[in-house]
């Protein structure tokens, strides 16, 4: 009787290591593009972040007395590290990567009990901690200088930038689109006059703009995200709701006052909206368990992103938005529950007797 019974069994989703491989694969094109766009320092930063998260994960597993090799090999730490590196300024110094990796894995995940136990997205915990702790280093956005271009630093120069910093930051840095939007509004220039210089939807789609390591290429991120949806690693609800809500809010505001509020294409293509929608907010551990819950979660993320970008103290807000909605996730899961078979939505048992009487 131990033979499996032939029936239309549901196939189990991929196991954790395979899932994580899919995420790494989906994030690879955007990351490689970022490395190409910002040159050797970006590659250094990526490698240092990945090495740090793996070391920190091994340390946490050792301290909690679990098998180290298996835990590291499941790849969840690598995904955390990759997403963190993707959201860092590409020419950030080495210690930003090391601090970030340690905060992500130890404070963001290890202290909660490891993979699958964390309340907040570890990469975003580290991103926000770094932004609060090192505001100067975390807002230094270099102009794109592709590896093939003459302006791109060589390997040795790249090492020097990662280890000791650049000698003349003013010469290589520039404002991001969201920075420019913010200052245009606060200085009262009006968006219509200021934006064309900083924002071209077609370039933003390709990703040729100053920004975090791998948040700029909207096209490659969207492709990676669609791949994840097709492979059923993530479901469509969070990314689609997030993007649609953000587009709807910004379209409405833009119609009311185009000089004050940026248009939807800027909100969707600039900054890390697509990275957040496909790779960060979709983290299964820190998002609600039900589809209505996830839709609520994603809509909340979008609303916070728009509010902070428009009225808040920081030009970019996806990390804050995701963390705040992570905090709301247990509450959402408490109130948004699927109806249990045989019970009403409120959980009281349905009476078969009464049903019969009602029908007759």
């Amino acid at each position: 009787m131990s033979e499996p019974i032939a029936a239309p069994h549901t196939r189990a989703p991929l196991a954790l290591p395979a899932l994580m491989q899919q995420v790494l694969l989906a994030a690879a094109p955007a990351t490689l593009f970022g490395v190409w766009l910002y040159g050797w320092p970006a590659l250094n930063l990526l490698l240092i972040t990945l090495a740090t998260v793996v070391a920190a994960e091994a340390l946490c597993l050792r301290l909690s007395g679990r098998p180290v090799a298996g835990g590291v090999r499941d790849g969840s730490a690598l995904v955390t590290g990759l997403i963190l590196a993707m959201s860092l300024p590409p020419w950030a110094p080495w210690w930003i990567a090391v601090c970030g990796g340690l905060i992500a894995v130890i404070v963001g995940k290890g202290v909660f009990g490891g993979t699958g136990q964390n309340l907040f997205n570890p990469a975003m915990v580290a991103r926000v901690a770094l932004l609060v702790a090192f505001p100067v280093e975390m807002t230094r956005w270099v102009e794109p200088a592709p590896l093939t271009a003459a302006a791109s630093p060589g390997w040795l120069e790249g090492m020097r930038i990662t280890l000791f910093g650049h000698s003349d930051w003013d010469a290589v840095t520039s404002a991001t689109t969201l920075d420019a939007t913010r200052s245009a509004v606060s200085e009262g220039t009006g968006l219509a006059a200021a934006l064309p210089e900083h924002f071209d939807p077609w370039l933003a789609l390709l990703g040729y703009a100053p920004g975090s390591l791998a948040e700029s290429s909207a096209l490659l991120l969207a492709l990676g995200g669609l791949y994840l949806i097709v492979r059923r690693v993530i479901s469509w609800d969070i990314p689609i709701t997030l993007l649609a809500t953000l587009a709807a809010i910004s379209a409405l505001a833009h119609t009311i006052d185009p000089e004050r509020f940026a248009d939807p294409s800027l909100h969707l293509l600039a900054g890390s909206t697509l990275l957040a929608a496909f790779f960060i907010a979709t983290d299964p551990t820190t998002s609600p368990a039900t589809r209505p819950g996830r839709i609520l979660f994603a809509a909340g993320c979008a609303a916070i992103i728009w509010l902070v970008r428009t009225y808040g103290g920081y030009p970019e807000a996806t990390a804050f938005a995701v963390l705040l909605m992570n905090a709301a996730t247990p509450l959402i899961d408490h109130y948004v529950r699927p109806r249990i078979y045989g019970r009403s939505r409120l959980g009281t048992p349905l009476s078969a007797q009464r049903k019969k009487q009602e029908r007759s």
Partner: protein
Amino acid sequence: MSEAIREDSPDAPDAGAAPKQPTGQRWRRIARDGLWDNNVVVAQLLALCPLLAVTSTATNGLGLGVATLAVMVLSGLLVSVLRGMITDPVRIPVFILLIATLVTLVDLTMEAYLNPLYQALGLFIPLIVSNCAILGRAEVFASKRPPGEAAFDGLMMGLGFTAILVVLGGVRELLGSGTLFADAALMLGESFAFLEVTLFDNYSGFLLMILPPGGFIALGFLMAGKRIIERGRS
């Protein structure tokens, strides 16, 4: 509130009737409880609000710690002396009244003699009144024990509290701004100048540790550290 405090430390030797151990052992027990086993912060998790608010530097931590210590010793003594006269239904208001009087004394003394420190700690000196650790000790210990033991308990609890404040302030100050006991000479007097240490020159600062989240994170690691040491012992 009193019920909660009673339940918080069920294994405390002070809850209930006087123990039957020999005197020396009893006093050692009080010292151990205050400094480590039943430490106000890392075991009882009391007084976290002033703890997290003022420990952005070690000097501030030391200042508030010593002020709290003085109030704890005196309130232990007073409550214990008056314990025969205080009836059960009114004990909480009476304890608060006694503590508030002592805090006012400490507050005025610090304003007069340690003015820079008083300015730095600000509201948190008068707020010692609402420090639940002090009321807690009055309720579970001082109101049941002789004055000598009660005062000693206040001293040990206060020392344990001060130690945590200084360690937490030191860790946060070290990581956050790369110094230790900055401005100690200014706040505590010239004779404390030897405490001031600058560990890193040109340190850009891990700002997060100075901010409130840094306090929570550091406190979490401190408590984990205590448990690791205890596990190592047993």
